[in-house]
């Protein structure tokens, strides 16, 4: 019932590209696999629930938001959170997570844009979630 290695690699790459706009940095996929094994050690089947969505190349960011607003302890949110930890704690992630300049205008514009984008992603996520639930019967 647990996810196969290649599926995890694809999942990590898909999330990395979709959220951070990057290919996974060296070592990130391996760390993702190991962290994944720790976090889902007691519930491997839960982790495998999104394999089909990964294979179809769905918008995981949208699906994750819809799931998180319903239940923040869902498996996909945990997967994205794992990747956040891994990216935040490597030098490549530093400029993505930390602002070192005074940039109020850029901040407000970016946060406004991301709020609007999140609304769109949420609508998309709900549609994907319904499709996912329908496919599981």
């Amino acid at each position, binding site marked *: 019932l647990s996810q196969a290695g290649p599926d995890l690699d694809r999942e990590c790459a898909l999330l990395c590209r*979709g*959220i*951070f706009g990057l290919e996974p940095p060296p070592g990130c996929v391996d*760390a993702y696999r*190991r*962290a994944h094994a*720790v*976090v*889902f*050690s*007691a519930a491997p089947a839960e982790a495998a629930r999104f394999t089909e969505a990964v294979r179809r190349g769905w918008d995981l*960011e*949208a699906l*994750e*938001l819809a799931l*998180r*607003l319903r239940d*923040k*302890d869902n498996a996909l*949110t*945990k997967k*994205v*959170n*794992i990747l*956040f*930890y*891994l990216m*935040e*704690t*490597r*030098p490549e992630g*530093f400029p*993505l*997570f*930390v*602002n*070192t*300049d*005074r*940039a*109020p*205008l*850029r*901040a*407000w514009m*970016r*946060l406004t844009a*991301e*709020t609007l*984008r*999140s609304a769109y*992603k*949420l609508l998309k996520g709900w549609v994907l979630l319904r499709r996912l639930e329908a496919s599981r019967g």
Partner: protein
Amino acid sequence: VADLVIIGSGPAGVWAAWQAARRGLKPLILDVGHAPGADKPLDQNLYDLRRQDPAQADYLVGKNFESLNNLHRPYQSPKIKSPRFHYVTQGGDELAPMESLGFNATQSFALGGLANAWGASVYRYDDQDLRAFPFKSRDLDPYYDALTAEMGISGAQDDLSEHFGWKGGLQPPLRPDRLAARLLAHYESYRPRFHRRGIKIGRPNLALLSEKLGDREACRYDNLAFWQPGLPCVYSPAMTLATLRREANVDYRSGYLAESFIDSGAQVVVKARRLQDNRVEEFSARKVILAAGALNSARIVLRSFQDTQTRLPLLENPTTLTPFVHAASIGSPVQRESHGLAQLNTVYEGPDWDSPVKGTFYGYSSPLASDVFRDFPLAARGVLASSQYLLPAITVLQLFYRDTPNSGNHVYLTADGRLATRCSVQPRLGAVEKHFIRLLLRAGFISHPRLSKPLPAGNGIHYAGTLPMTEDSSQRYRTDSVGRLACAGRVHVADAAVFPELPAKNHTFTLMAVAMRVADAVADELGGRL
């Protein structure tokens, strides 16, 4: 037969030992004593490390992914789950299994106890705080003064001094971070408005050095307090224990888990399991001081009497967290130079709560943004933007409320030897938070009552009250004013188990003072020098 055996090396055990040693005794300390790893100390600012160090995941996430704890295990605070602090809670589930019934307890078997990962906030209890205790604040003053001199405490004389009881002996206060400085300036400009609502704000009193003390260096504002245990500027009981051992004032034995005792009237025999080979050894003493923490001291007492029937009271401060965004600081750079601990303190005394409520404002410069990923209602890329631009503008208010005994919250020993912690009564909170939300809005700090969240029971970590100092003779396991167990006269309890109530102020400093007072009484009985 030893004069005195002390069980545990947390703040209570260490300061009981310190006082006993001062009185000419040489206590034997039995302790599990997990110690920090031998990692190379971090010696740069957190943000320099995060910008450059390719190996940072080893200590920020952990080789065993300790920082991911909250994704698959019961919640732990960012500092407790930090990889290098793992030793603080290491082995708790195996050494002292618990059954959690609505109360998720954190235990420590580390040398120095949970105070290795504490927030370093220190408060003196006043007579109002001690209303249920069988002594007054003046009885604790000499111990508070001795602790202040030994530990090194920074703070200011301000509006909160009367609440926290400081009259002097403090190092200068630490530099507040940007948001705290703004909030404090606003408070000072509009003080009467705050006072009308029963709110006072001031600088925190921290066991964190702003100036060199002995061979301990002052705080470097490097944001490492969450990531590097044993920073010399942050006081830990492990430091005092190291001094006691160096000066041969105690006999410290690690690797022993105390399980029970037998008080024969003439002496006490402590049974402790040697973890190396699981063999039970016996230690005889004229007196025993239990200082294993409110939960573990209760476990030892109940096991000693093989009592699976009695329900002991359990206290913990109800706690809420309320985030505030300072709108004008959105887009500010990260607060690179901060100590990461409490930035400001506050007290509420008004009609919406029947006793003073104590609060602390924290910045968000030390923990990882990933810790709060699930709390943002935005898509992942939006959370990323919030991490950059919103987190440096956030301050979090943590409010603590007094707790008193009630029948719904208790501990007991199960038939298989586990300690069950049950919490079924939680107060309805939120009214006090609304005062802060309204007042701080005028200073540009935005929040909403729906953002205010209570911490789940057990996560506040301030446990107390299991073996209370009370005259209620219906309680078999009560203690007297010097911590003596009613059912075992040679056994004294010196940790927070003896608190009959738990005031809103963090209890660590007071439990140290109480432990010293208990040790003094024990020394009197053992004929220690004056």
